[in-house]
């Protein structure tokens, strides 16, 4: 890839009616404006997600209104709601079956950490234990505006992804995995409580 064009030169050209772009910008522009989410909901957050897709909040303004019933056609997985340990393997498998490039929004307190059920026995303490999450939305449940904000954040992320170089996007690197191990049902709990390759718990600092 060649050097990016000088911003001042670009705006100068734009004033004269010449629009200059690069392959990377064109590619990302196309991708970020047609993010097709996977159509599934897990709990009450899904109601907010449905409201986001409906007329009042209208996620179609951001090009994300086509909720696909098949992971083969989806770019984005919105984990909307409580992920129970019974459901977690299915979520991971659905993520694995999505075509690259794929993104994950963890919506709501339950999806990001287990939420009010964190101390319980049957709720996963955050979907980021098994799959890489791009945007986290706190809230119980988050309002549709929050989901729209997360969507815009994701668009910003897609827009900044590189096509080449050492820091190019994950899905373009051959060595980056596209699927992650599906947790198994053990005798008492899910076998392997987290995928160490994906899950990086915050360090607890004690004074």
């Amino acid at each position, binding site marked *: 890839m060649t050097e990016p064009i000088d911003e001042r030169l670009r705006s100068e050209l734009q004033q004269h009616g010449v629009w200059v772009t690069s392959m990377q910008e064109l590619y990302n522009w196309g991708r970020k404006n047609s993010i097709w989410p996977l159509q599934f909901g897990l709990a009450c957050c899904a109601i907010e997600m449905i409201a986001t897709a409906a007329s009042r909040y209208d996620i179609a303004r951001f090009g994300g209104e086509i909720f696909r019933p*098949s*992971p*083969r056609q989806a770019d984005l997985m919105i984990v909307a709601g409580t992920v129970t340990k019974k459901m977690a*393997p*299915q*979520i991971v*498998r*659905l993520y*694995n*079956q999505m*075509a*690259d*490039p794929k993104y994950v929004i963890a919506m709501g307190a339950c999806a990001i950490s287990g939420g009010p059920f964190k101390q319980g026995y049957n709720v996963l303490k955050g979907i980021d234990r098994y799959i890489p999450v791009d945007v986290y939305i706190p809230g119980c449940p988050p309002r549709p505006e929050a989901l729209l904000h997360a969507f815009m954040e994701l668009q910003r992320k897609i827009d900044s992804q590189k*096509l*080449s170089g050492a820091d190019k996007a994950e*899905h*373009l*690197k*051959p060595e980056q*995995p*596209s*699927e992650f191990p*599906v947790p198994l049902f053990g005798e008492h709990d899910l076998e392997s409580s987290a995928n160490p390759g994906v899950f990086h718990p915050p360090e607890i600092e004690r004074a």
Partner: protein
Amino acid sequence: MTPNPYLFIVIFVGVALVFPLIPLALAWLWRRFFQPPKPGPDKTSIYECGVESVGDAHIQFHSQYYLYAIIFLVFDVEAIFLVPFAVAFTGLPIGAFIAILVFLLLLVEGLVWAWGKGCLDWEH
């Protein structure tokens, strides 16, 4: 000189071939130079709403289902013809009335045959 009128069909066929081939070629080039394919056992497996699929997706439905198809047809055709018959009932001559009765009799005969064959029993 006017071109051969069939020339447009040739052009049309050419466009119909090139039009779908361009995106396919672009996708192939994209895969070749930018995005490495990443197939895997999960990714290429049969999609069954996230649950592990059991068996093959290409199974044959048992041919016994033809009985249900026939019964469905009986009631379906009956409904299609009965509604216009009922709408036009008062204005119909006696010949048409007898004709529709014969037609209904044929369908009822089919139903009786199916009943006798026992395919209305849900247990079978």
